[in-house]
């Protein structure tokens, strides 16, 4: 107990040293771009903690899987079968449209848009800090994940990869205050930038003139500008427009399509050229879903 007296610098000096070091670390972390690689190593170091913290939830869902009744399984099965049937019908039409679109684009000499390779990933942890919206997923550099890769769920864009670890990586959600995504209105192709505002169910459109042709209920899709997000994926829908002429811009709020508060399974997207071996190619999924290939495709 007597060690507490007269050993090393005094308490106050230690405090000051640590505060100065902390501020230095903050500066380095935010201003020095190359520091991201160091963070990758740090992330890999602490990932065992994340795996342990994830265990209770994983065990709960595992036991829920084990003990779910026959009745629920049958009901789920029926629901999913119905869904697959409906979706594959849509897919049949979609394939023809895609082919048609490709042909038209060729006629116009416009570059043909490649479909994306995908990989399904699972949520590992949610950041509990209220100041930032980030999640951790269970795919990392070993699976070919790269920085600022797009992440989707079944209804829209979720965010982009902000840090890559060896076996897991961190996703910055579109609702984070530091995140902005270029979007356009599906109806008339007017372009905006949607910025997160720190709440999970709203985005703000920036610098919208009062005269802009924008209505409540308009659908926002990613515009592909900025070359982070691929073009044409749904982002959100406009829910509120305040046109106060005394302010320089209209105040426009949108609600993201992705269910950011109940994420479980996510999709990672790769452009065709850089896709890793484990990714699902866009064509295989189509031929899996529809057994008899339609005659248009054969030609």
């Amino acid at each position, binding site marked *: 107990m007597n060690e507490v007296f007269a050993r090393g610098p005094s*308490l106050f000096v*230690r*405090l000051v040293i640590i505060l100065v070091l*902390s501020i230095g670390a903050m500066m380095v972390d*935010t201003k020095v771009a190359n520091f991201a690689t160091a963070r990758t190593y740090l992330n890999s170091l602490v990932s065992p903690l994340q795996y342990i913290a994830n265990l209770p939830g994983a065990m709960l869902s595992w036991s829920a899987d084990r003990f779910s009744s026959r009745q629920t399984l049958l009901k789920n099965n029926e629901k999913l079968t119905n869904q697959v049937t409906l979706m594959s019908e849509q897919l049949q039409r979609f394939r023809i449209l895609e082919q048609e679109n490709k042909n038209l684009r060729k006629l116009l000499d416009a570059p043909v848009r490649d479909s994306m390779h995908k990989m399904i990933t699972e949520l590992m942890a949610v*950041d509990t800090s209220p*100041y930032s919206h*980030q999640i951790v997923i269970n795919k990392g550099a070993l699976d070919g994940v790269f920085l600022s890769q797009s992440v989707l769920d079944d209804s829209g864009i979720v965010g982009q990869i902000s840090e890559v670890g060896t076996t897991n990586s961190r996703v910055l959600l579109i609702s984070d205050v530091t995140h902005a995504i270029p979007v356009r209105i599906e109806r008339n192709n007017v372009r905006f930038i949607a910025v997160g505002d720190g709440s999970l169910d709203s985005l703000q459109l920036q610098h919208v003139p009062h005269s802009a042709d924008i209505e409540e209920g308009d659908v926002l899709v990613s515009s592909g500008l900025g070359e982070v997000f691929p073009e044409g994926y749904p982002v959100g829908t406009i829910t509120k427009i305040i046109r106060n002429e005394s302010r320089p811009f209209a105040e426009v709020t949108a609600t993201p399509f992705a269910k950011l508060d*109940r994420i479980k399974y996510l999709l990672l997207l790769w452009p065709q050229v850089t896709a890793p071996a484990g990714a699902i190619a866009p064509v295989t999924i189509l031929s899996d879903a529809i057994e008899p290939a339609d005659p248009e495709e054969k030609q």
Partner: protein
Amino acid sequence: MKLNQTLIPASIIVAFILQIMPMPASIDVYRPDWLLLILCYWTMALPNRVGVGATAICGVVLDVLYGTSLGVHSFAMVIPVYLVAANYQRFRNYSVVQQAIMIFILSMLYHMLVYWLQYWLTGVQFRFEFLWPVITSVFLWPWLFWFLRRYRRLLQVT
């Protein structure tokens, strides 16, 4: 491996896990400051073992786990822990209720510091939801204090 040497690191690791364990969004806003409370307890009970140095390291680990800029949580946690370390004898003589009031102030200070630093770095908007953990921490303190003191005495941690 002696039990009385592993209690402090074990409790800190458990605090980390409790701090990052995924929770439904509706409960998540009430998550108490496990790490800050456990560090405050050990600083008060055994200032020769846990102090500002250990807190700074824990803060950096928490930053990596949370994905915040390195140094935010170490900066914000070191100041409350310093206050405890400087007044540990006074703290020990307080009743549990008085200690809980002190925890209210310390936890509030911690959250305001994290908010200020985050505001400075990223420009977040303040919401009163950010302060719910202060309330839950106050109610958690008496239980945590009782639990940790019991095991500290049982295992004779010095």
